[in-house]
């Protein structure tokens, strides 16, 4: 559409199957049933906030994400009104230049924006930060991540083919939202650690689906983090040829507790991983003719080892999950930086 207000369409009945048929004719939807966005449902979602508030313009379509348009997609995804402020904050983050959403949508890589919910809103709006946090079974996580994807498809135009060139796509492109387990973090919340001092915040990191790290037996940080480093140091990730890339390391509470009880800070974990997640320079030079490396990395000799990222600050550490001893690594697409913004809970 090209006018200011979204079009209203006739739907034969208030039914998800009827909506899918209607939307299919326009090339809309993610292939799963959606909640029909009737004016009444959208008004309820908006909860009295300004529907015409322009939040962002998203490429490649240059779609204008007003609060109403965001609410429409939140209804479609199955969100409740309590989750709308999180979706709005995520759209603000998507529009940050350093995130490079144009590139994220255009790349052949499988990158999807991982939305991490921090602080009070994670609890008040019902997000899961504990057991199975990356998985199914929680409406807030599932519907918020899906709303972000639907906004990318509908407003930004990131449909496979004309607006999303991903070679294989990926399951994280359906819905990719998790809450930080701040209550079990020995280092406090992640958002404050990157300078966002807000009661509620979100982070977007455009990368791959989580890579599992399993350590059942270690009572010292080093053996656990060596396994994390092993998951980081692989040739197939974009981090290997692009040294400015970030990693997100989602430690489970038990692995984090082992590190903290040994006196390790969040920064110590990043520094250790920076020094242990390395590959031989010769191997990387053989694998990649084109390397977007920092100058100091380019100067290394073939028999040196090189870190998988150019600075320890690119290794972001937070706590996610419940009981058990499985952590995860989320590699980056590469030409993107994570963004953390406050959530305005009205």
């Amino acid at each position, binding site marked *: 559409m090209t006018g200011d207000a979204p079009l*209203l369409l006739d739907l034969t*009945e*208030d039914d998800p199957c009827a909506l899918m048929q209607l939307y299919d004719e326009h090339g809309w939807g993610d292939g799963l049933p959606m909640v029909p*966005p009737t004016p009444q449902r959208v008004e309820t979602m908006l909860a009295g906030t300004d529907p015409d508030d322009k939040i962002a313009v998203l490429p490649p379509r*240059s779609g204008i994400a007003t609060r109403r*348009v965001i609410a429409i997609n939140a209804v479609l995804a199955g969100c409740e009104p309590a989750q709308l402020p999180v979706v709005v904050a995520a759209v603000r983050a998507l529009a940050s230049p350093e995130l490079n959403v144009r590139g994220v949508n255009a790349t052949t890589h499988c990158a999807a924006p991982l939305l991490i919910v921090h602080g009070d809103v994670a609890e008040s709006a019902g997000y899961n930060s504990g057991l199975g946090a990356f998985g199914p079974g929680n409406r807030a996580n599932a519907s918020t991540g899906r709303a972000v994807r639907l906004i990318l498809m509908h407003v930004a135009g990131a449909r496979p083919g004309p607006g999303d060139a991903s070679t294989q796509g990926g399951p994280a492109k359906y819905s990719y939202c998790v809450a930080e387990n701040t209550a079990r973090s020995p280092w406090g919340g992640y958002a404050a650690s990157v300078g966002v001092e807000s009661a509620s915040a979100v982070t977007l990191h455009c990368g791959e689906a989580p890579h599992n790290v399993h350590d059942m037996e270690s009572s010292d940080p080093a053996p656990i983090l060596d396994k994390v480093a092993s998951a980081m140091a692989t040739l197939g990730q974009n981090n290997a040829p692009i040294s400015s890339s970030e990693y997100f390391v989602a430690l489970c509470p038990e692995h984090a507790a082992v590190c903290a009880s040994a006196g390790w800070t969040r920064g110590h974990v990043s520094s250790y991983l920076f020094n242990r997640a390395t590959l031989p320079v010769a191997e990387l030079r053989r694998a990649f003719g084109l390397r*977007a490396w920092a100058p100091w990395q380019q100067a290394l000799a073939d028999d040196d080892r090189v870190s998988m990222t150019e600075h320890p600050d690119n290794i972001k550490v937070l706590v996610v999950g419940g009981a058990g001893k499985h952590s995860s690594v989320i590699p980056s697409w*590469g030409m993107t930086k994570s963004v953390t913004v406050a959530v305005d809970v009205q």
Partner: protein
Amino acid sequence: MGEQTKVYAPDGAVGSPAAAPAPPVPVLTGKRIGILDNAKPNAGALLERLAQRLVSRTGAVLGLVETKNAALAAPDEVIARLQSEVDLVLAGSAD
């Protein structure tokens, strides 16, 4: 069968369109060709070969070769140099 209802379209309005491409150059003879190599594998070789063929077939001249990162927009100064020094640009290659 339920009652007919109204639903919103999910896409919203479109903002200012990106700059439109310049019109085609009708005759290449004497025109200056630029290359904007996006550094994808073999992009430079492909674009240079294409430029050479255009030069030999039309009498155009190769004026300027610039390189950019494939994942990011070309810097303003690169675009400015191309605007001032060439009449058309061969740009881009996918994976």
